[in-house]
Every structure is written in C-alpha cells, then in structure tokens.
C-alpha cells in the first residue's frame, strides 16, 4: 500500500494505492490520525485502491466518526468491486461517496 497526501489549507486529500487489508490498515489509520488536526475536509481518493477487507472498513468507520466532529470526509474514485463491498456492509449510507 502507498499513501500519498496533498494538503491545501484545511483540505487534505489522501490517495491510497494498493491493498487495504489486515496488515496495511493500521498504517493508514495512524497516518490519517496524525494528519487531520485542523482539517475540515478529508478526501480519500480510492481510484488506485485494489482491495479492501473489514480491517480497512474499520479505519473508514473510525475516521468518519472523527471527521463528523470537525468537518466532513469524502470517499471518491472507488472501483465497482469496492463499491459493492460498501453496498453489502451498509457503508454506502454511512460514508459520503462521490
């Protein structure tokens, strides 16, 4: 997994490339938590995300809760296969998906 961060004032875009699984999810979790201070809009760019398991969903859920308190979180660029996982798990309704 690669994490590419672009910050523009209070907007942070984080592009996640590769696999978000049991092994890599803790890295994304700590990277995001260390980066969101003062951020109003967190955009997760999943256009190069190939795979997500429940470990990745847990990170999204905990980040959504944190961002609800200070602004908004947007998830964009997800593939059809990843959107289907959001659908099955109800994440399609609790995330802001573009």
């Amino acid at each position, binding site marked *: 997994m690669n994490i590419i961060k672009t910050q523009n004032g209070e907007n942070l875009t984080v592009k996640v490339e590769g696999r978000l699984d049991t092994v890599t999810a803790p890295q994304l979790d700590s990277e995001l938590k260390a980066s969101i201070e003062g951020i109003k809009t967190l955009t997760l760019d999943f256009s190069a995300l190939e795979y997500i398991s429940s470990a990745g969903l847990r990170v999204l859920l905990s980040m959504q809760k944190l961002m*609800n308190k200070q602004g908004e979180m947007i998830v964009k660029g997800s593939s059809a296969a990843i959107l289907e996982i959001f659908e099955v798990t109800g994440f399609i309704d609790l995330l802001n998906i573009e």
Partner: protein
Amino acid sequence: MKELIVKATDEELDNVIAFVTGQLEAVDCSMKAQMQIEVAVEELFVNIAHYAYTPDIGEAAIQTEITADTAEITFIDSGVHYDPLAKPDPDVTLSAEERQIGGLGIYMVKKSMDDMRYEYKDGRNILTITKKL
C-alpha cells in the same frame, strides 16, 4: 486437493492469499469473484490468527479444491471451539456513531459466498466456503 499449512499469524496472510489467488488465476476466475474470495480468505484466516490460539501461536491448514466452475476452500485449526456462523449478523443500517466494529468480516463472507459450512470434529474447527465461479 491442495493444502497449505502455516502458522496462524498476520505475517502469513500474504502467503495464504497468494496460495489461493494463484489457483484462481489459473482457472480465469472473474476479478469480482476473485476479490470476494480474497476477502473471505483474509477474514477467516485472520480470525484464526487473532482468536484461535491466543495468547499462543498455532497452525492453520487451508485446503483448496478449485475448478473452472467452483472454488471450495476449507480452513482447519485446533484452537478454541468457535463457530463463526453462530454469531448474529451486525445491523448494517446503523449510522457511523451507532455502528459496532465487530462482526463485519464474517458478515461479508456470508454475503459473498454461495455456501458456508462449519463442523467441530476431533478437536478441530473445520470451516468450508464454496463459491460458484
């Protein structure tokens, strides 16, 4: 039938996934089915790694029967008696604030596989998933 026996630890996850995906690619499995199977394999193997032998480390066996029509994958461990199918499904309609963290992995497996069978036999948990390809 092919079999892989590994230590049930997160460090072995990539090996377990590679063992299964290699066989799926050999039968030209669709990308969608392959991702669903990879997720199922990860969730079930990681469950064994996290809960079966805690705080010790034990072994897990992954047996595969993969043809152009069907993928059948069996997970065997000798850890604590645990039937993942007995667990109630999480409520997937709740908001972010109300959501519980647990149970999502097994739920994803149940939803994406065509069949899931659990058996406890001779001190071993035997869980088999089947997916039509």
